[in-house]
């Protein structure tokens, strides 16, 4: 069994290789940094080559752990099978997508998912170009849109949640996979509307204004809700909060240092995620992840461990 929760692995050594999503990267980096104190002889490297590359490397056995901001696709899963590998998906934190406007924007306080869809859906391209087309009382001014690069998991997720289909959106918005660039864009453009990770909003609160989002479903919180630690954690900030994953492959868990690292990860993720601007899972969910991983290590989980 790989149960080394007591972190007695300080005499462990070896390499743990992680690669994948840039969104999950900060969490894993923080965990790796803390883990050095636990097991100084284990070298953890964390690459940032995107979820796609991360999966590709995972299913080939090139890396032990993949960071992912989306679930694995079927064809990627198939490749794992062909290579005789199985894997387990572990949720490690939530990310909240925040809809933001310029701080001097005094007309938008909240927005509905319907309206967001109207703005972002493919049909809006070239048509929805002014604020007053969304709500007539909003000013007759050009609407400038900002969002993450279309190749990012964040964009994937947003389109899925708002438009209903991944990657279906208008194309005439300013994109950057560097969220700082988006912060810069929205904070200097009075007629901007954008979305990006909660952490970037939290760090730039003075330059931005977050917009409350109403999903029209009162079961998870009534009315429009602003993204925050609490609202994401308790699930009321819907639909724009998403889970972040790590995937661990079956060959890797034969090595005790990988098992030890992943266990440490699940222990530490909650606190560290919060520190760097993501939202921890409720505690009981971390327990679930730990059990799932334990099962996987002991050989019962296999690929079916996927939710």
């Amino acid at each position: 069994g790989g149960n080394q929760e007591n972190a007695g692995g300080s005499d462990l050594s070896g390499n743990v290789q992680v690669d994948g999503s840039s969104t999950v990267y900060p969490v894993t980096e923080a965990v790796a940094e803390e883990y050095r104190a636990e097991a100084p002889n284990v070298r953890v490297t964390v690459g940032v080559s995107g979820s796609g590359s991360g999966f590709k490397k995972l299913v080939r056995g090139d890396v032990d752990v993949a960071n992912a901001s989306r679930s694995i696709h079927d064809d990627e899963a198939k490749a794992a099978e062909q290579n005789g590998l199985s894997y387990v998906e572990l949720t490690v934190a939530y990310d909240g997508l925040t809809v933001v406007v310029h701080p001097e924007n005094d007309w938008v306080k909240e927005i509905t998912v319907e309206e967001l869809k109207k703005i972002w859906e493919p049909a809006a391209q070239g048509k929805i170009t002014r604020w007053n087309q969304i709500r007539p009382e909003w000013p007759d001014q050009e609407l400038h849109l900002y969002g993450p690069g279309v190749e990012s998991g964040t964009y994937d997720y947003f389109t899925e949640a708002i438009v209903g289909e991944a990657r279906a959106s208008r194309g005439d918005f300013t994109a950057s996979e560097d969220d700082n660039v988006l912060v810069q864009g929205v904070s200097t453009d009075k007629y901007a509307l954008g979305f990006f990770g909660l952490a970037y909003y939290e760090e730039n609160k003075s330059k931005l204004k977050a917009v409350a989002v109403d999903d029209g479903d009162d079961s998870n919180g009534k009315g429009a809700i602003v993204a925050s630690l609490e609202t994401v954690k308790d699930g009321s900030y819907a639909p724009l909060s998403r889970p972040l994953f790590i995937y661990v492959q079956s060959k890797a868990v034969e090595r005790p240092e990988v098992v030890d690292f992943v266990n440490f990860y699940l222990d530490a993720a909650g606190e560290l995620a919060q520190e760097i601007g993501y939202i921890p899972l409720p505690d009981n969910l971390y327990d679930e992840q730990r059990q799932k991983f334990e099962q996987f290590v002991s050989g019962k989980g296999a690929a079916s461990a996927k939710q």
Partner: protein
Amino acid sequence: MRVTEKIIEGLLWLSALITILVTIGIIWVLLSESIGFFKEVSIVEFLTEKEWTPLFANKKFGIMPLVAGTLLTTLIAIAVALPIGLTIAIYLNEYAHARMKQIVKPMLEVLATIPTVVYGFFALTVVTPFLQQFIPGLAGFNALSAGIVMGIMIIPMISSLSEDAISSVPRSLREAAYGMGSTRLQTSFGVMVPAASSGIIVSVILAISRAVGETMIVAVAAGQQPRLTMNPLVPIETITTYIVQVSMGDVPQGSLEYKTIFAAGITLFVFTFALNNLSFWIKKKYQEKYD
């Protein structure tokens, strides 16, 4: 003795051969991935479609918007760098003291060594807000700022290489011009610049191909919105930016989306290849004119 000579020559030849292998390697890498792409997307569509949305649900594969973005930023960069760079070259060559030239030339060359990420943020956080004071319609991300800053970056390429070219015009020509009562300006523009024109053109072409290949500045400052436009005030996307974005993104390898970067890469390669060939032939053609 003779045998060693032959062996050494062989080794040297092999080293030279490596450069060919590199080219073959580049072409092979770009082709092998983009062939897959062109099986699914016709070349005609690639070249004539007016939208580039390979990552969207509704995919369109027209490279033109990226090409337009690349051309636009390059054009702006050259419009900045050519007059300034050439003026500096002439000034340093004909007017400035030798000592000043010795100091100023390497100082300007520092401009080309600043990491381009730094330039990108300079364009985004300094140049754009500055320009927005004069150009109300200027978007936060635009080709103009990125192009201007890129122009600043390539100034030293033009100023240094052109100065070298002017310096290497035989002294006798300069003396002939002065000997006939020319002013410095007349000597420069009437004799030196025309005589050094091939070298100057080459420097400009090299600067262009540097601008075409530049990635980070545009990635940061020009927005990433493939758009078939020559309007410098709005966000655009260049070929290089697209490649970097996708290679850092979450796109699954082997997918059609992933292959687009190689199709874009080969377009970029064809571009710079044409430019470089041009500069090579210009250089060759005029090289032996003197002595």
